[in-house]
Structure formats: C-alpha cells, structure tokens
C-alpha cells in the first residue's frame, strides 16, 4: 500500500512537472526530442560512447557567449567518440527560430526542441547553458556549467572538458557537479 502511495505521489509530481527524475550518477531512461523539422528523435539513437546533453537558447546572451565554445567542444571531441545533443527547451523559442539561430551561428551540430520542457524537467535543468555528460551506460557523470566564466579570457576551470577527458580515459570525474549559470529555461506554464 505504502509503495502504491509513493508511486502515485511520484507520478503526480512528474505529471505536474515538479519531479527531477535524472540524478547525478543515475542512468537516464530513453526520452524523445524533436528535430527542427518536427520529426521525433529518440535519445537512444543519438547517444555515443560519451554523450553531452546541453540545454541552450537562442536569445540568452550567456548561452550565446558559449556558441563558439560549443563549436570548439564539438570539433575537439566528436572524433573521439563523444556525441553532442544540444536541446532548446524554451517555450518562447520556436523550432523555426532554433533552426535560424543554428544556421546563423554556423553550428556543426543539430539542435533539438524539447516541446513543453518535458526533457528539461526530467533532468531538472534550470539554465541555458547547462550540460550533462553521460557515460556509455547512460549514467550522468558530470552536471553543471561548461566552464567557470562567461568571459572566455577569465576561464580558470574547464569543467566539461575535464569531465570528458576523465571519462574517455576510463577514470572517475573529479568535479562531478558544478553550479550552472545563465538565463533560466523559459518553461511553459502547466496546469496544476
């Protein structure tokens, strides 16, 4: 009975969009995104040896400050077996805008839409940019900021790069969680 009540509470929280399902260290279950043409894409089809999930935006100045750094990350790690899944979960930024923004900025990677911020809710993502690095089994090994400064010249810690290097070397990630910073994800209002 107690188990049934717990399940019901969890289901209600998830339905209301309040529950963070994917926690650091835990394996994420499959989820579905949409490409900018509206075609559903399963995460299972996108993941690799190491997978970076990144929540980004078109209008957020902080996220935009990371455009070049995201491209550099892609160029440096794609060939080493890291897959990048960039996601726009902002209810205020439609797929057409996401496609235009990606094109204008010369992104070499696709950006997917998370309609209704369902995936952002499951990850508990709050900001753009905010990243998660998953291992081959799909467990979250790093969560937080890409690095420690919006201003590239003041970066002291390359959090995501350090995590990727450790994961690719089969080692533990020393700093597994940092505080992401940026604009808040503009969530859709859900009926309570």
């Amino acid at each position, binding site marked *: 009975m107690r188990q049934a009540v717990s399940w019901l509470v969890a289901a209600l929280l998830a339905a209301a969009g309040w529950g963070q399902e994917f926690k650091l260290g835990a394996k994420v279950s499959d989820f579905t995104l949409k490409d900018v043409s509206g075609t559903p894409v399963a995460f299972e089809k996108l993941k690799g040896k190491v997978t970076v999930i990144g929540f980004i935006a078109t*209008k*957020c*100045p*902080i996220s935009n400050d990371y455009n070049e750094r995201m491209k550099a990350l892609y160029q440096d790690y794609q060939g080493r077996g890291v897959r990048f899944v960039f996601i726009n979960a902002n209810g205020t930024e439609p797929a057409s805008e996401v496609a235009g923004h990606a094109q204008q900025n010369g992104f070499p990677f696709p950006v997917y839409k998370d309609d209704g911020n369902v995936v952002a809710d499951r990850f508990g993502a*709050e*900001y753009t940019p905010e990243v998660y690095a998953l291992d081959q089994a799909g467990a979250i090994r790093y969560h937080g900021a890409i690095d420690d400064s*919006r*201003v590239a010249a003041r970066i002291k810690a390359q959090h995501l790069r350090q995590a990727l290097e450790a994961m690719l070397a089969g080692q533990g990630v020393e700093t597994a969680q940092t*505080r992401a*910073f940026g*604009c*808040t994800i503009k969530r859709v209002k859900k009926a309570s």
Partner: protein
Amino acid sequence: MTRRRWLALAGALRGPARLTPVDEAGYRKLLEAERGQVLLVDFWATWCQPCRVELPLLVKLEAKYRGRGLKLITISCDEPEQEADAARFLAQCQVKGPAYIKRAASDDRFIASVDAKWSGALPALFFYDRQGRKARSFLGETEVAAVEAALGKLW
C-alpha cells in the same frame, strides 16, 4: 515628452556612475548598516530580460513606500565588462538607492550566504525586516503585486 521620460533620458545621458563592489562580507555589512529600514534587495543583470522588466516596477514600489521606510538596494550580477551598461540602466530607471555589483571570490559561496535555497537564478528578490532578518525571498520572475502583498505583512 513627459517629465518622466525627460528624467529617464537625462539619467541615461548623465552617464554611468560606478557601482560599489560587494562580496559576502560586504553584503552582511550593508544589511547591518541599513538595519531599521525594510530592505528590498534586488539581484539583477543587464542580460536578464525579466530583471529589466521588473526593476522599473520595483523603483515605483519603493517610491510608493519610501515614506514608510522601504529602501531598494540593487546588486548587479554582471561581469565587469557590463558594469557601465548596468550603471546606465540604473540611471535610466532612476534608481535612488545604493547600487552594488557582485564581486565575490566564489559565486557559489556568495549565493549560498544570501539564501541556501537560491540557485543563483535571476531575478531574485529578498526582503529584510527592520531588525535585519530575512523575511521573504522571491526567486525567479515575480509579479510585483506579490511583492507588494508581502510588503504589507512587514510593517
């Protein structure tokens, strides 16, 4: 042009004043120094669109209740490169109260010292009562009507 618009334009043209840097210790000191008033501390940034919408409304709120002891304190979370823009926006909004800019050795420690439940998301508003105790926090976008309602419980 209305008088309000003239004042805003004059404020913007006057150019940026410098903002006072504040860290964890400085924040504690400023709260201590302002004890006896009801403080509304607004953490904001020039890049934060909801903050830019909210700030002029908070200025109006402060003007309405200044006589009863309300004081608005702004703390910009901008980078040094945006300090001039931040000062210009404050002048444009005719912010009367003290204006600070967050300069902490560790953002994590600063944020945790202000409110353990605060993730650092902007805008963030904190009410302090006349005894300097934190009375209410508003994290994220907030209707100013809700802020005013909370203020009503502090007198």
